[in-house]
């Protein structure tokens, strides 16, 4: 217990030391706020504009959340599809890899013309960037189940659905959650890029318009709030993983107990 507290203390200290070093550097080198503001200035800005920043956090959160959700649904569905057949998998892999490498951010200005402005292009970009890790990892997880275990269930007369739900899926959980943790960060990038190009609200919009107005302090304030949002959403995924892994390990235990 004490060790945990000490660990957290030092984790916090790395941030504190980082901000301290930043503050000192800016002051000692006399860097102008319009080039790089000091942390104290940024925190002051966050406080001064807290209402506006909070107001703009919501649309960004919605865009990230929905983009991530769609990425998961579509990614998972595709993964299950290709996990089914080795042939399908081998045929589609190169296509998937190429699609993953294509820089979707480069398409962002086109999305404004194709999808209009507002929430839709944000969700599309976020989902597009976020879903490939889910596809690749889920497929990998589902197909890396110990074949002997599956044969054993076959010998017990288990249906494909039972094999999937009882064995394949729980087995794939670590892979899936590894991908989800990556995907949430990608969804954040996608949503913000969408806001840069195609929206009139959101933290990405605030960052962009503050930059144009040479208001670097506000820009950093918005970046900080966005970072906090991102960390919170990441932690939410980690929390869900803990919950699901606990309950799914129970299911596996029950399964083996009755066998």
């Amino acid at each position, binding site marked *: 217990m004490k060790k945990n507290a000490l660990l957290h203390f030092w984790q916090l200290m790395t941030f504190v030391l980082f901000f301290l070093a930043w503050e000192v550097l800016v002051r000692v080198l006399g860097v*102008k*706020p*319009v080039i790089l503001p000091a942390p104290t200035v940024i925190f002051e800005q966050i406080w001064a504009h807290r209402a506006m920043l909070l107001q703009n956090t919501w649309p960004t959160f919605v865009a990230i959340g929905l983009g991530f959700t769609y990425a998961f649904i579509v990614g998972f569905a595709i993964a299950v599809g290709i996990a089914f057949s080795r042939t399908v998998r081998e045929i589609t892999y190169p296509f998937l890899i190429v699609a993953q490498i294509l820089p979707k951010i480069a398409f962002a*200005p086109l999305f404004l013309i194709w999808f*209009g402005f507002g929430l839709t292009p944000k969700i599309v970009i976020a989902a597009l960037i976020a879903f490939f890790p889910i596809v690749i990892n889920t497929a990998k997880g589902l197909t890396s189940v110990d074949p002997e275990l599956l044969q054993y269930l076959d010998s017990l007369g288990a249906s494909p659905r039972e094999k999937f739900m009882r064995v394949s899926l729980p087995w794939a959980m670590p892979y899936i959650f590894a991908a989800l943790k990556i995907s949430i960060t990608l969804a954040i990038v996608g949503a913000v890029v969408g806001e840069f190009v195609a929206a009139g609200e959101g933290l990405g919009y605030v960052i962009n318009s503050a930059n*144009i107005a*040479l208001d670097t302090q506000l820009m950093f304030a918005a970046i900080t709030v966005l970072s906090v949002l991102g960390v919170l959403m990441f932690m939410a995924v980690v929390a869900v993983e803990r919950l699901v892994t606990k309950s799914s390990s129970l299911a596996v235990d029950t399964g083996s107990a009755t066998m």
Partner: protein
Amino acid sequence: MNIRRKLLAVLALAAIASAPAANAADKVKLRLDWVYGAEHAPIFLARDKGFFKEEGIDVELMPGEGSSVTVKLVGNRDADFGYATADQALIGLAKELPVVSTAVILQKNPTAFIFKTAKPVKDVKTDLYGKTIGVQLKSNTGRQWAALREILKLDPSKLKEVPADGALVPLLASDRIDVAIGFYHNDALKLRASGENVNWIMFEDFGVKMYSSALITNANLIKEKPDLVRRFTRAFVKGWTYSAQNPEEALKAFIAANPTTDVKYATLKLPEVIKQTRSPDADKNGVGSSNVKDWNEMQTLLVKMKMMDAPVDVTKAFTNQFLK
């Protein structure tokens, strides 16, 4: 014998190496405001016709990502010179970036309401309601629009604005927006070049008068190398005065340097841009000249538009000394 030859060779090399560098040209970086366009043709002409070389300058041209970024770069001495709009330069100065305009090339505010003649805007006080207005958030035109809204006392709840960065032309062409707010010599002429019938209403007609693109540099560079700034400004302005007399040549120079450019668009744009170099002040005192009165007027507007918090001493924002 051998040793003597070697010795002579070494001495010769030493003599060459220690001789003063034969007038090495000053290497200078010029960061523009946006991607290369016909509005930069006089700059390309100045470079490719050797105006900078004549002044002993080897100029490196770089495209930009908006005037505000160029102002930041020049203010931070990441670029020696910049080409950016005067209002952004003044805002930069107010934020303690030592940016100084040595030549205000474009003397008119090119921001305008652009629309298809089939769906015209005649009276901005009433005709903007119910129309979808495309606004560029990355451009100062967005801020000007916000200010003009107040000046005209428009009811924001009756206005439908949408973000349209980098997409004014396709959005207006496809009728996804009815009115575009942009630089008339860019978006309106691009549309005309592609066969659309468009017209425009200038923001200047409503009192939104501002200096536009200017040659800017860092005040510290002026202090350290005033002669370089003089020579550069001279060559730069010469590009503009020469292009005014020889627009065909300027166009050719631009197309040669940018072979993939839309020639029809460039042909329409260049004469309009050259027109904007003229004003009573510029006609009397030469291209690039600016004065305290007009800078102060622009500043008052910027403060009113809340683009600046408080006024600064505009005499620190510009100088005409290098135009002589």
